[in-house]
């Protein structure tokens, strides 16, 4: 909503003076970057990729009746996907994040 007497401008200036507005450059939704946040996130990414890979391998094995083989393959694939997730955590796809 625009105001007639430049109220918004004055309010913004006043808030800036008091340091109430967060820095617009960084406040725009970047993920929390504390060491614990990064560490926990990395751990969850690896484990979840591994879990999905193992579950997928088990499921396919039960369906196709090839017990250990697809499980072993997807175990490795899951591990690789976990590493890929970590890689994406620090190097997002080009242009994926502004």
């Amino acid at each position, binding site marked *: 909503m625009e105001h007639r007497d430049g109220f918004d401008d004055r309010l913004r200036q006043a808030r800036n003076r008091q340091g109430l507005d967060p820095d617009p450059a960084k406040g725009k939704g970047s993920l929390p970057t504390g060491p614990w946040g990064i560490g926990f996130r990395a751990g969850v990414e690896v484990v979840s990729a591994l*879990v999905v890979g193992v579950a997928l391998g088990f499921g396919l094995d039960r369906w196709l009746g090839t017990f250990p083989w697809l499980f072993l393959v997807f175990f490795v694939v899951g591990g690789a996907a976990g590493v*890929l997730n970590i890689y994406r955590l620090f190097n997002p796809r080009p*242009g*994926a994040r502004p």
Partner: protein
Amino acid sequence: MAAEGKTIDALSQFELIPVLGPVGRAVGFSQSNAHMLLAVGLVSLLMLAGIRKRALVPGRLQAASEMFYEFIEKLVTGQVGHEGRKYFPFVFALFMFVLFGNLIGLLPYAFTYTSHIAVTLGLAATVFFLTTIVALALHGKKFFGYFFPEGAPLWLAPIIVPVELVSYLSRPVSLSVRLFANMVAGHVLLKVFATFVVLLGGLGMIGPVAALLPLSVNVLLVGFEILVAFLQAYVFAILTCIYLHDAVHLH
């Protein structure tokens, strides 16, 4: 209750108990569902009461509701871009539901429905299916190019495609496990230290003095848990936005 038989029973707080008597038992209406309804009611109440007056100078409720609105609106437009505005209601509802679940769960006697993997996985699966459907609707067949980066040698496809596929499928799992694990860990810690207070308090003369130690830890933990409640709701919302960005722009 927690210290019955002098053991630490930190996990019974996550048990589902049917409420509303025989009717609730018949349809499986647990306290978790009741708290979900409570959270939805509170969110609706906050937003409706907040925008009722439409004052130029907002009161407290209006300021709170506008703050939440603008926060998520900035998040969505900042992450997804201008096209993302259509998905604002979804992200906003998701954020408020998770945030209120986390916060209500911190009240004594309340239940944290976000501490159940079934709930968080349900939310994450909704996000996953929504983003996949959005990507398919917007890009059609080109969506499958997502699993094979341009310029990679073709003979690597048998390796890259399964890895990318598993990585994509692991998104809802990591999204749900993160929220669930944070909430469970926080509540278990609170319960363990609260049990220490009770156990130490019963130790005769020095008991009450020694019990002050875990009590002060618990005071700090509650503050920390409020931080975690906001942070995890925020992380859930922002990851939803990142996935939506991937779905809309398909990089």
